[in-house]
């Protein structure tokens, strides 16, 4: 579903923020992308979702090139950023309707999906309020619902659990598992190694812009915890 081949990204000054990253996420995978702050996780994710321009390497989603067919890629992708900047002067329901309109979701379907996810995340009552009045966690929940509304084939999440309350964290994990069973590919970055260990079947560790370890959870941990595997990989570099 998602193929990243030899992706590199340099900013001004020539220093590479991401250097020769390659990985693939198949339908049904929950792929955890872990690394220190500033390791290059968000730079990779933003290129995958078509926000960040890049010159080196190739990224394809569902067989379409992010560089050359961005719209086709975005139609099957949903992205949840780490700090959702939503339209503050729209109400929650106005924002969700906007996203549903963009993806051409029918009235009955959107109503059912918004109701389902808003109930699950317990924000149904707040949907009529302006997003500006939401807490960080509520904005995050609105962003998550907007991502799920069109049933994407690829779900990309950047630090999705930051700011969520324990119940919402549990709900999101359940939704991710459910989507994965239906064949959706999930690619997400996180600092929470426990969550990654319990949720993911594949993991990649990135350090200073380079992948230092990658594979299935079993291959990477070899009977140890993910935390131990991460620290070992980190120390070896």
């Amino acid at each position: 579903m998602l193929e990243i081949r030899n992706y590199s990204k340099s900013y001004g000054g020539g220093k590479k923020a991401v250097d020769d990253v390659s990985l693939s996420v198949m339908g049904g995978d929950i792929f955890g992308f872990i690394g220190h702050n500033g390791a290059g996780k968000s730079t990779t994710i933003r290129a995958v979702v078509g926000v960040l321009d890049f010159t080196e390497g190739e990224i394809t989603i569902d067989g379409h090139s992010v560089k050359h067919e961005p719209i086709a890629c975005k139609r099957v992708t949903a992205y949840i950023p780490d700090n959702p900047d939503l339209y503050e002067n729209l109400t929650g329901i106005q924002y969700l309707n906007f996203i549903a309109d963009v993806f051409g979701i029918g009235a009955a379907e959107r109503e059912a999906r918004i109701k389902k996810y808003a109930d699950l995340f317990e924000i149904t009552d707040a949907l009529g309020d302006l997003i500006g009045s939401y807490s960080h966690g509520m904005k995050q929940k609105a962003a998550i619902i907007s991502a799920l509304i069109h049933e994407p084939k690829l779900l990309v999440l950047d630090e999705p659990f930051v700011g969520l309350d324990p119940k919402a964290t549990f709900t999101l994990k359940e939704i991710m598992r459910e989507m994965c069973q239906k064949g959706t590919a999930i690619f997400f970055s996180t600092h929470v190694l426990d969550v990654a260990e319990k949720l993911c079947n594949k993991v990649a560790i990135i350090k200073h812009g380079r992948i230092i370890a990658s594979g299935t959870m079993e291959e990477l941990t070899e009977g140890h915890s993910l935390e131990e595997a991460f620290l070992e990989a980190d120390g070896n570099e």
Partner: protein
Amino acid sequence: MNNGWLLLRTLLLSTSWRNILRFSGDKKKRRRIIGNAVGFAVVYAMLVALCVAMCVGYGKFGIIGAAPVMCALMISAMAFFLTLFKTNGYLFHFREYDMLMSLPFSSATVAGCKFLYMYVKSLPWHMSISLAMMIGYGWFAHPPVAVYPLWIALSLFLPGIPMLAAAFLGFLIARISAGFKRTNIVQTVLTFIFVIFCFSLRFIIEDIFRNDKVQSTLLLASQLTGGAAKVYLPAGWFADAITKTSVSDALLLVGVTMLLFTAVFAIVGRSYRNINSALKSHAAAKNYRMTAQRKRSVIHAIAHKEFRRLMGSTAYMVNGAMGEVLAALLGLGTLIIGFDRIVKTVTNGAPFQSSILQPAIPFIVYFFIGMMSTTACSPSLEGKNYWILQSLPIEKKAVYQGKMLFNMWLTVPFMAFSTLCLCVSARVPALNTALYLLLGVALCAFSTAWGCVCGVRHMRLDWENEIEVIKQGAAVAIYLLPNMFVVMGLVVLMVVLGMRMDHRLLTLIMTLIAGTLAALSYARVMALAKK
């Protein structure tokens, strides 16, 4: 619904006051919106009054036929310059870029919608001018009834071409800057160069159409507009469509606008992601070595933070420091070209001694320096980061003092430089020069404190794009427009009084008045800080 229209509708809805009034339970917010609406209504009314007065003047002197061209030129100039100042914040580097670009919109659609959003938002300004001049024209010219709907319809297209030209210039600046490491600085410098070039171009064009033998100023104005319409074709198309009810000219204006829109955004769309990636990304050098750090007082620390804020944003720098740059250029220009020659050029060789303008020097300089006060927008610019100042153990008073100190840092050196240059060039006696500098400082203090009153009273933190508070905020509009009109009047008043009174005494009186107003405004800021 077409995705482009859907996005445009959402962009408009997301910043509409109606939506906030409808759904927000925050009474303070609702009151602020109503207050802002009243403030804008007053400013629009002032603009309408100015345009009507202009038409009455044209009508009384029998040159009402020049009104359509003048209307087209005024709207076009306003649209061009306002767009040039806003393009950076609206088309590029906006906050919700990641969210929009991750949705299935093409780059050209996002850029085009952002442009149309900017167009719709500035339409009330353009239509205020257009409708006022249409009424004036109708009153004196008695055109056929069909002219009125045609005037209104074409007015919607009038700002299109200049806005597209300015947006394209902004795009070129951003495109060039994207290739540099210090994108922000390069973008600001290029914008300054383009704006100053455009200002100069205006004078060059005017100069071409000026006829030294022409005695009547009104006739000259009529010739100028006619000449300008020949250079700037859309103004001519609009005027011919109105005065000759020419369908072909009307179609030309509409057709060219639409064609340009399609062409510009096809080009912009190609590099849009590339430019935004460069503007939003910051090179991480990761080579910092701990050096000696400086301790600052709270007020100095806030002023220093304001300086960093200004330097970090092209839109803020271009809008906040444009007056200072123009004042410095004016000073340098007079020093090189000579005060007398510049006065002769600006007044088209009117027969008077340039020395009578001497007492107006501080106000001429202040016209530029006071064009914008950073204190009018800096309280709102805190935006989502306001919590940082709120959670720190400092009083609001210190925050406002820091913001005011920074504006003084910014304005006083430029004012002093420009005043000194003008005084040297005009051979003003030393004591008078010292008094002009004193008046200049008092005016800077007034601008700073009054700007802060406007900024605090109309503080708006929930903006989506910083341009909303830098260029379109109620605080800035309420500070800027009356200030500009009053200063123009004061320049004339100083010249008139200067012919009857001792220049030193006059300057001292004005210093006293400006100083008192500055002190009163400062006291108001301190009172607002206690609330």
